[in-house]
């Protein structure tokens, strides 16, 4: 009789484990960023690395994103494979030139001659009262600009596999982790943020979405923390006889359009749940993908449940009003089925 042994890790531990294993495997990998050493990363993504690898490979930086993110590009061009942390994605404004005019464009500008293998890790998302400058997801903002892959894990398993894949990738990869999936003791508990993670190294392929729950009646396309919200909603809906399929994108760039079209072709109904701003972004791209790829299969016009086009407010009732959640997802699904 097979005995199933579970190796339960939080998402943040899964991420730091992946980094540690790649650092052991490849001496050219190193980590730098604000508070990633002694502190272990504000969201724990680099916990324990300093003790294991020392300050030469786990480097606390000054609050100087332009310099150290730009330095990651230079180091990558000269043979290193840096992992560099932008503490909150919202801080992109002070260093976006280094990310998008340099890191993301040099491979193209060089006609493919030079590679820039950098992983930029960054914390995203709100729901805990951190207001307008520390709560955004900004998927659409980054995904709009070509040259960087973007991965957005939702589970500990995917987090480890996507981090391993990102480090081994020869392109710049933006690795966005939602604070609400990390399993941090100081965030609202999320039971899915702790799960079995295999001990050995493995990759989750970049560019492949994952059906987190199968269903016949509608497809909920979503990512990151909203996967958890969608799964909660799907459990509610199942009690009413509605079987929702939850498709976790896992990667924004390149977007797994095939998986989106395949799922919606089956269920004939699309609900996009996106914590990012509504307009000109990810939710619209998913809808376009379905219109282009599954037009004739659609039973109903697609529905989007997103963050509205407003800066993220501080006060709890204001923020909660704006955020998609389980009940709003379930309500939108019911409407789509009606």
């Amino acid at each position: 009789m097979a005995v199933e042994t579970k190796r339960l890790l939080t998402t943040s531990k899964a991420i730091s484990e992946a980094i540690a294993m790649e650092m052991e495997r490849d001496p050219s990998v190193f980590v730098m960023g604000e508070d990633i050493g002694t502190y272990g990363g504000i969201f724990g993504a680099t916990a324990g690395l300093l003790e294991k690898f020392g300050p030469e490979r786990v480097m606390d930086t000054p609050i100087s994103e332009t310099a150290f993110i730009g330095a990651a590009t230079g180091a990558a061009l000269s043979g290193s494979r840096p992992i560099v942390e932008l503490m909150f994605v919202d801080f992109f404004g002070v260093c976006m030139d280094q990310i998008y005019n340099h890191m993301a464009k040099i491979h193209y500008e060089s006609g493919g001659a030079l590679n820039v293998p950098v992983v930029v890790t960054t914390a995203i998302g709100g729901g805990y009262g951190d207001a307008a400058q520390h709560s955004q997801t900004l998927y659409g903002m980054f995904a709009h600009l070509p040259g960087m892959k973007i991965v957005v894990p939702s589970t500990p398993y995917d987090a480890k596999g996507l981090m391993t894949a990102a480090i081994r990738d020869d392109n710049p990869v933006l690795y966005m982790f939602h604070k609400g999936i990390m399993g941090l003791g100081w965030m609202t508990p999320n039971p899915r943020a702790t799960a079995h993670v295999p001990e050995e190294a493995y990759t989750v392929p970049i560019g492949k979405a994952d059906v987190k729950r199968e269903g016949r009646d509608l497809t909920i396309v979503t990512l990151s923390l909203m996967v958890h919200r969608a799964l909660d909603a799907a459990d509610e809906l199942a009690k009413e006889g509605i079987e929702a399929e939850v498709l976790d994108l896992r990667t924004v760039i390149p977007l797994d359009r095939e998986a989106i079209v395949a799922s919606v072709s089956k269920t004939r109904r699309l609900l996009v749940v996106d914590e990012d701003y509504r307009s000109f972004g990810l939710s619209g791209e998913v809808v376009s993908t379905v219109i282009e790829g599954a037009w004739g299969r659609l039973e109903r016009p697609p529905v989007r449940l997103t963050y509205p086009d407003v800066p993220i407010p501080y006060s709890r009732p204001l923020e909660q009003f704006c955020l998609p959640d389980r009940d709003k997802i379930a309500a939108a699904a019911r409407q789509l089925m009606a």
Partner: protein
Amino acid sequence: MPSNETLREMHHQMVRIRLFEETIQKAYFEGKTPAFDIAAGPVPGEMHLAAGQEPVAAGVCAHLRSTDAVTATHRPHHVALAHGMDMKRLAAEIFGKDTGLGHGKGGHMHLFDAATNFGCSGIIAEGMPTAVGHALAFKKQDRDDIAVSFFGEGAANQGAFHESLNLAALWKLGVVFVCEDNAWAISVPKEKSTAIANNSDRAAAYGIPGVLIPDNDPVAIYEAAGEAVARARRGGGPSLIEVKTDRLFGHFEGDPQLYRSKQEFALIKERDALRVYERRLIDTGVMTSQDAQATWDRARAEIGEAIEFARSSPYPEPASALLHVFA
């Protein structure tokens, strides 16, 4: 004092840069007369030429090897050539040809060359952090290669300048920061943009050596760079060198330069560092005027070949625009 051979080689570099820039200038205006249309002719887009700034490139790059990283600016040709970039592939890139460094994808402000570890950025000061990163990688890899970051005086008021100096100083990285002060940030003179007279003084804020070369003299630049490069190579950390140089042409070609006076044009023409330097080498017996002429002839032939290569090369396949977004 550099050897006579080095003095002659710097002269050679300066000559080929000057001729290259003059040749590109002529090519740039093909198809752009009588009415100037920036998109027309064999060389479209903005064109920033570095005539007058040759001493900085020649004096600094004389100390470098091809594995040293160099980052330059929107005005990069002089540095690229002095650091050993293949002139044919440079010219072909400027002409947008498939044989160019980036197969026509980069253009003259975005030159990247693995063979000489060269890169540049069209965004003011933003090439500097990359140089810091090259030096960081060299340190991690226990190499004694160094990084040199060229930038203009206009860049010294950007955050990236200060962040880069701080980080390089903090981590004691082998970077030589070279400020080419040509006095003009497009049309804004330095005294209207910068709170102090000499950016080299800003080195003190980061606890690193700051050297001022007041006169665009290739020998003085060579000597200051020699010290800074040696210091960087032996793990002594970064330095800042500031050179008061001259931009003989406009900010970009087609710039009417109404902001510059007739006196200034006369002055910079009269003190043209290349002519002054050449005269000095002849007067001090380092070379004869026949040697000088031979150098010009040699450079002219090299440039003729490079431009011919660029002109006769094919354009890239249009749909190749979609390639090389990802490795």
